[in-house]
Structure formats: structure tokens, C-alpha cells
């Protein structure tokens, strides 16, 4: 039996350490991992727990992230509870196998510490790797601080392993700003955490020799479409299970999570939509701006990046008087509008109120996003709302040096 790890009611943990503790408490059978900044301490910590007898499981050292995720797929198909961690280039190298994992409906948990993608090479946090995963068929849940990184890693097992879901889950946290920032974290006791996560109940496991099974079969035009559609439906339907697991977690801990977090939206006339550690900055800026200048600002943050919560985004927009919505994307959009702008706009278009939608690209490669800059963007939204139309280009860049850069003007008057 694994040894119990003594924990205080409140610990000072960074996001990485909090995540590795959550993985330890989930008592994973196999972790196959390859180190990469800034996620390394997650699996490094996990390896130490294995070595020191806190886990009854296997830690598999591999030669690359492609091999790491391949090892996870094999172990999950065999019938084990499986997890790993990665960032950035490592995530990109995993990309091929991510699609295998979701198509094979293997509930692997991947704790991603978000980091920019080269080139230029960069170890700091932005959302390029998280965005790269958005069509991979995984559930993607975003933590904004270390406590959430811990909580959501525990929830990830419950969600992905639910027999109505059977899909792999990524939890995300921002590189350095969350992964390396120590804060107060309230952990669950080992026994309580494990009871919440529950025993793993595998399906179609290869180690059940009484029912030989083929995993990873080839299909062509005759079958591929049906399997992909079934997978997509499972992902869409996972919304219900995510809501249930979050409700159960709240009952256990008092900490509430929603597929879309919103702050001060009830009376908001303008709002910012953003993800990750910037949410805290934006909420602080919104509170200050409300006090200082009387501008009613709200914040919307999709906790669940996939399945994208169109339903809840629409509700938040329609239940508020918001007139101008600015989506901030922390990833280089590569010849398009930011992904968050596209998703939120699609949801907003099917509301009766249809706010003015704009897009900022910000924070690339770990560029700082300040309270003052958040306030400037909020004031700009107020100007759009007062004018009744977008007064700037639709896509702009925040915190970028050099001549002002922007694309597309509105034709809506």
C-alpha cells in the first residue's frame, strides 16, 4: 500500500507542486513522461513520490513527448489510470498521439503548463500550446491559479473516466505565472481526495484476457465519419458530467467551478473575455474602474475551453446588459482572428442582443499584461458602447512595441 502523505490544512504550493500532489492522490497506475520547462516539476515531483513509496504505480521514462503520450495510450488501453504533463514544444510533439488518445476514447489526464511555441524559442507562458489542442477531441479545462490547478486535476479524472464520457482531459495553467507562483492552497486529505476521484473502472481493457479486443483499428470512408461523429457527441454531452462533477466538488470543498466563470456581469455594460492567470488581473482592473470611473465592467472566462460552452456563454451575455465585448487571445492567431474571439462571436451571434465584438492579441511569449493596460482596453470598450459601433479596428494588439497594428473595420453601423 502507498504511504499517506501528511498535509496541513493550508499549504504554500505553486501550480506545479499542487498538480503533482493531485496526481499523487489520484493513485495513477502509469505516468509516462518527458521533462520540459515549465511543466517539469509536475512529473519530477511525481517521480519522487513513486520512489519514496507514496504511490503504487509505474513511472516510465521515455525518449520524447511523442513516446510519452504513446506510452500513456498503451497503458490506458491496457486498462490503467494514466496521466502525464507537458508544455509547448513537447505538447506539439504529442499532437499526433493526442488524436489517437481521444479517438480511442482513453481517459488519460494531461496536465499542461501553457507556454509559447517557437520560433522564436521562448519558455514563457502564452496560450499557443493550449490552442493547438483545441481540435484534438480532448476536454480542456483551464485553471487560473494554483488552487484551481490542484482542484481541477482531481476533477479531470472524474470527468474523463465517467463511463458516459470516456475521453481524455487536459488541465491547463499558465507557465510561470501559475506554475511557479507559490500561494496558499487548501488540499484535501489523501483519503478524501481519493474517495472523490474513486477507483478506476476500465472499459474494453486489453489486460482482460477473457475478452480479447483490438484497439486503434483502421477505418476508411466507410466507417471513419461515424466514429468521429460519435466521439464529437460524447465531447458535447460531457458538459452535463462536467457540471455534475463541479457540483459534487463544491459540496465537498465549498469551492465552486463553472464551465464559464463570470464576474460582475449582472450589470456590466462592457466586458472582457480572457483565460488563465490574466483573469485575476482583469477582475482587479474591473473593480478599480468601477470605483474610480463608474464604468460597469464585467469579466467572462471560459473555464472549459473544450467542449466550448456556447450554451453558458449565451446565457451570460443575454442575462447582462453588455453592449461591447472584447475577447483577448494570448496566442498568435496565424492569419485569423483570435480563437476566443471566433468562439465567443459565434455564441454571441445567436443571442438576441448581439454585443459589439472586438479582439485583442496580447501577452505573447509571456509579455506582461498590466492592470493599467486592462483598464485602457475597458475604457475603449466603453467608447464603443457609447458610440453604438466599434470605433477601432476589430483586431488590435496590446502591449506591442512599434507602429500601431490592427486589422478589419466594422461595417455594422
Amino acid at each position, binding site marked *: 500500500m502507498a504511504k499517506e502523505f501528511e498535509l496541513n490544512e493550508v499549504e504554500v504550493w505553486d501550480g506545479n507542486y499542487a498538480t503533482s500532489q493531485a496526481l499523487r492522490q489520484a493513485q495513477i497506475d502509469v505516468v509516462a513522461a518527458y521533462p520540459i520547462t515549465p511543466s517539469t516539476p509536475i512529473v519530477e515531483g511525481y517521480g519522487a513520490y513513486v520512489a519514496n513509496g507514496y504511490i503504487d504505480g509505474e513511472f516510465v521514462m521515455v525518449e520524447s513527448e511523442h513516446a510519452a503520450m504513446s506510452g500513456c495510450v498503451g497503458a490506458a488501453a491496457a486498462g490503467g489510470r494514466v496521466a502525464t504533463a507537458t508544455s509547448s514544444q513537447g505538447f506539439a510533439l504529442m499532437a499526433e498521439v493526442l488524436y489517437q488518445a481521444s479517438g480511442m476514447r482513453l481517459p488519460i489526464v494531461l496536465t499542461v503548463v501553457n507556454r509559447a511555441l517557437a520560433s522564436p524559442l521562448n519558455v514563457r507562458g502564452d496560450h499557443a500550446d493550449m490552442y493547438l489542442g483545441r481540435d484534438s477531441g480532448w476536454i480542456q479545462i483551464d485553471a487560473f491559479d494554483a488552487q484551481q490547478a490542484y482542484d481541477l486535476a482531481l476533477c479531470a479524472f472524474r470527468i474523463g473516466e465517467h463511463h458516459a464520457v470516456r475521453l481524455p482531459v487536459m488541465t491547463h495553467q499558465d507557465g510561470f505565472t501559475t506554475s511557479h507562483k507559490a500561494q496558499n492552497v487548501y488540499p484535501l486529505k489523501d483519503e478524501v481526495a481519493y474517495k472523490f476521484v474513486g477507483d478506476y473502472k476500465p472499459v474494453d481493457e486489453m489486460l482482460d484476457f477473457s475478452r*480479447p479486443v483490438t484497439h486503434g483499428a483502421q477505418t476508411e470512408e466507410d466507417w471513419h465519419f461515424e466514429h468521429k*461523429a460519435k466521439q464529437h457527441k460524447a465531447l458535447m454531452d460531457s458538459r452535463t458530467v462536467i457540471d455534475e462533477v463541479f457540483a459534487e466538488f463544491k459540496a465537498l470543498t465549498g469551492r465552486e467551478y463553472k464551465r464559464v466563470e463570470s464576474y460582475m456581469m449582472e450589470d456590466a455594460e462592457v466586458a472582457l473575455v480572457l483565460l488563465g492567470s490574466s483573469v485575476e488581473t482583469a477582475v482587479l482592473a474591473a473593480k478599480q474602474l468601477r470605483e474610480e470611473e463608474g464604468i460597469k465592467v464585467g469579466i467572462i472566462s471560459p473555464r472549459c475551453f473544450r467542449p466550448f460552452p456556447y450554451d453558458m456563454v449565451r446565457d451570460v451575455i443575454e442575462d447582462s446588459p453588455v453592449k461591447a465585448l472584447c475577447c483577448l487571445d494570448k496566442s498568435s492567431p496565424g492569419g485569423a482572428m483570435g480563437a476566443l474571439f471566433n468562439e465567443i462571436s459565434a455564441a454571441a451571434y445567436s443571442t438576441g442582443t448581439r454585443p459589439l465584438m472586438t479582439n485583442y492579441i496580447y501577452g505573447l511569449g509571456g509579455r506582461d499584461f498590466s492592470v493599467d493596460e486592462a483598464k485602457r482596453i475597458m475604457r475603449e470598450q466603453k467608447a464603443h458602447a457609447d458610440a453604438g459601433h466599434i470605433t477601432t479596428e476589430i483586431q488590435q494588439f496590446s502591449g506591442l512595441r512599434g507602429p500601431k497594428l490592427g486589422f478589419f473595420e466594422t461595417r455594422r453601423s
Partner: protein
Amino acid sequence: MSRGVLSTDKRGMRELGAEEKVGWDEVTQGVALHTFEGSTQSAAFTRPEERAYTDFSSYTATVASWRVVKPVYNRDVCIDCQNCWVWCPDTSIISRDKQMLGIDYDHCKGCGVCAEVCPTNPKSLIMFSEMTENDEALSGWPEKKKKEK
């Protein structure tokens, strides 16, 4: 062509791809395909024709149409050495109690390895055009070659 050798089993019962095309709601989760109906404790000790193969096993499908040349087997020359059985990459040599019974024409791709490794003189397995009838092939079987000096 007669299937002949073991006529009671589910081998090659259907053309590959001719199965019923069900909708997205009926396909298996994650393309996990079970080989046998129900559970089994003894598949390794049961002869193929006695196993409860599902349609997800290639055992029940025939891919005979992929082949353009085929091996023809001559019992009269065969010494049951099992060389072809060992080398066949598609387990298409049917053998029982170390006695060669014939070719599984539902799964043989016509690669010719069996004929290549056959040690008898003349060979007990020779490749013929798929269009040639087996009886015709057997009636013109070559004579034993004399050893060259």
C-alpha cells in the same frame, strides 16, 4: 472455388466491407473491436473453427478477391514438414496434427512464400494464375527433377 478444407467453420463467411453499415449511434466506442462473442477462457486451446469469432475478426471475412496468383497444393508430393505453415505471413496454411490439409483461400494473398520455402522435389506448392482451376493445375504437375552435377 470450393472452400473445402474445414467447411463447418465461420472462416471467410462474408466479403470484407460487405457488412451492414450501421449509423454513428451503433458503432463501438473508440473503435474497440472484440474478437469473440462473450467472454472466453480458452481461445488459445481451441481450434479456430470452434471459436465464437465476431464479425470484427478478420477470420470471418474473405479477402480472396485481392489475389491474382494462388498457391496450389499437391498432397501426393507433400511430406508434411510444416515449413509453409511456419512461413505463411497470413496463417493461411491449414494444418492439423502436423498434417497439411490445404490452403485458406479466404485469407491467402498469393505472396508465394509457401511455394518458395517448400523443400520437396517437385514442389508440393506451386503458384498458378487465379484463373487456373486447381484440377487443371494438378493434372499438369511437373515431374521430379534430377539432381544437377
